[in-house]
């Protein structure tokens, strides 16, 4: 196509070549050619986005859905997922995609997915497009909250489910889990494994979700190792392996020998493995990326929730709620330990996990001091879930700053 354009422009040039005004002519021809080329290229690129959109939203998946819909009189809901990264990220989106596959298998539905959707006005456009021909839409990143709500108001018949947010509507619910329990457990493992008592934590954004996980992690560390400190750096991105890696390397340079990352990719684990440090990521079992260096980390298990939710839509019993999973129902868990983690650490973590499930132990029980030394939670008191979800301070022992 590009070549064709060039050839035609070339011919044009040759046919009009014998004039005295050569220079001007050559310039205008080259300009025309470039415009043509740019058009072709921009055409190509927009074609490409269309193609990917079709790939992800329509082509392989929608055909069977329609087929199923025509065969069965009881119409199955058309389900769509909006992802922040690619399903191959090995973390957050990977787990959501696993949950989608689980739900598809259980219910016999083919869902559509759109990946790499930025948390910007683009998200609203894509959710709007999906809302026009779907019945249930899962938007799986915090930053989609307002866009999902805007679209939910415009499409009252479509059910929207948003991950980790706090805004709801009659047709928009939220879902998330108490992953701080799992962060506490990985903190115990990290506190046991560190030799230098310097632990690094790569945080995505200074928002409550990340802050309370860092705090829970620190409390877990302190429960077994009073001397260890946790240093935090912010990357200001959920998924950017290059930046995550730089952050991890700067922590390793500071002397950290155990790293954890609240990020979507295994870049931190990979960087730690190269330096002989131990690390965990987030969201998903990351053993395969660096088995020897792998500690553990909180993981998600979305499949049963997706299945239950879509089933309730089929049954007509769905209503808007703010669902919060936990260790008990399995939405939150910690990944299997890496081979380098000794038995006694595994036993200790598993015992603590049992206590958290039974309710004998809860993570944010006083006395808890913040980084400045002020008492934030008094002895004998426990923070409520609502209080945890708005946390904007670090517990003592965490080194880092929260931009105000």
């Amino acid at each position: 196509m590009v070549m064709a354009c060039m050839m035609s422009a070339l011919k044009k040039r040759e046919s009009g070549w014998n004039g005295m005004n050569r220079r001007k002519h050559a310039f205008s021809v080259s300009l025309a050619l470039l415009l043509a080329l740019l058009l072709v290229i921009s055409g190509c690129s927009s074609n490409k986005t269309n193609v990917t959109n079709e790939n992800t939203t329509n082509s392989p998946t929608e055909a069977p859905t329609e087929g199923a819909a025509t065969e069965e009189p009881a119409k199955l809901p058309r389900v769509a997922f909006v992802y922040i990264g690619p399903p191959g990220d090995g973390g957050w989106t990977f787990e959501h995609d696993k949950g989608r596959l689980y739900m598809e298998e259980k219910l016999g539905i083919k869902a559509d997915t759109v990946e790499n959707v930025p948390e910007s006005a683009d998200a609203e456009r894509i959710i709007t497009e999906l809302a026009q021909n779907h019945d249930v839409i899962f938007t799986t990143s915090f930053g989609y909250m307002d866009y999902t709500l805007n679209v939910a108001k415009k499409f009252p018949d479509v059910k929207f489910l948003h991950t980790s947010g706090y805004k709801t509507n009659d047709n928009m619910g939220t879902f998330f889990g108490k992953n701080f329990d799992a962060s506490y457990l990985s903190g115990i493992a990290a506190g046991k494994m560190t030799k230098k008592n310097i632990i690094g934590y790569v945080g995505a954004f200074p928002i409550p979700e990340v802050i309370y996980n860092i705090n829970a992690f620190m409390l877990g560390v302190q429960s077994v190792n009073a001397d260890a400190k946790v240093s935090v750096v912010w990357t200001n991105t959920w998924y950017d392996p290059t930046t995550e890696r730089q952050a991890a390397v700067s922590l390793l340079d500071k002397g950290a020998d155990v790293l954890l990352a609240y990020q979507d990719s295994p870049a931190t684990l990979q960087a730690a493995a190269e330096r002989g440090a131990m690390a965990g990521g987030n969201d998903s079992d990351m053993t395969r990326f660096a088995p020897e260096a792998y500690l553990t980390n909180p993981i998600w298990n979305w499949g049963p929730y997706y299945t239950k939710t879509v089933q309730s839509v089929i049954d007509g019993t769905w209503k808007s709620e703010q669902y919060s999973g936990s260790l008990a129902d399995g939405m939150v868990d910690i990944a299997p330990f890496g081979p380098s983690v000794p038995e006694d650490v595994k036993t200790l973590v598993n015992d603590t996990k049992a206590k958290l499930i039974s309710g004998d132990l809860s993570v944010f029980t006083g006395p808890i001091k913040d980084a400045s030394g002020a008492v934030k939670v008094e002895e004998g008191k426990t923070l409520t879930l609502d209080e945890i979800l708005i946390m904007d301070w670090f517990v003592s022992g965490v080194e880092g700053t929260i931009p105000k």
Partner: protein
Amino acid sequence: MEIVYQMLLAAISSGTPLLFATLGGILIERSGIIQLGAEGLMLMGAVTACLTFVQTGSLTVALLAVCGISILLGCIHAFLSVSLRANQIVCGLAMTLFGAGLSAYLGKPVSGLPVPRAVPKLDMPWLEAVPFVGRIFAHLDVLTWFSFVLVIALHLFIHKTSWGLHLRAMGDSPATADVMGIRVQAFRYGYIVAGSILIGIAGADLLLVYSPTWTEGMTTGRGWIAVALIIFARWNPIRALFCAYFFGALDMLGFRIQLIGSEIPSYFLKMIPYIVTILVLMFLGWRNRNKPSGSPEALGIPYIREQRF
């Protein structure tokens, strides 16, 4: 001392992709062609390296494939800017857009896959005995060493050989070079292709050494920084080395400032490389205000034999 050593090492590791891209750009611009396609070429180099290395597991095959793709893209660029005499700025932008779009499309299947360590390190423990600098050079990878060799080779080539003289003549006054018997068009093709290969290797280095996972748009502006570095380095390979490492260090500085425990919000720290780019540009502009810019005289002007402009 430890922190200086760490910063230097970090500067080298994040500066090496910049260095390759800058050297490639210098080679192209010295021949008189503006090079703005670095971002696209780097992305294409990175995605090609990822696809071929994941498929074959061989570094040689991956690098050969990167060279192949870069030659192809270089030929397109040369065809547009030399044969068709298209506006070189638009040409370069077109290459960037083209490379960014195509690499995102091709990279779909490998997006997010971890790429195993590909580039071997040259471990030379005996070098550690050399005070200070020894430790830095003792454990660098092959591509980094290649970039050192390349800097010196290009410097000698451009300034000490008759071919280099021809190259500079072509960039300063293609008509004169033509009269001297140098085949300007053919050599420009050659230098664009050679430079494109280096820029492609910059992308491969970024992926295989620095950040071993393909992500859409993973260069995040490094190609543009390389374009600016060509000007900072004033088209000189030796200066390019220092400029690239300077910017490599800036890239890593933000996290280290966070770790010192400063109260500067991390959002501002992320802007450091870009703010410094502006400041350095202003400073150099001021310092060199009475000097020639070092830019090839005929940069950006298409050459047609016997045609007056």
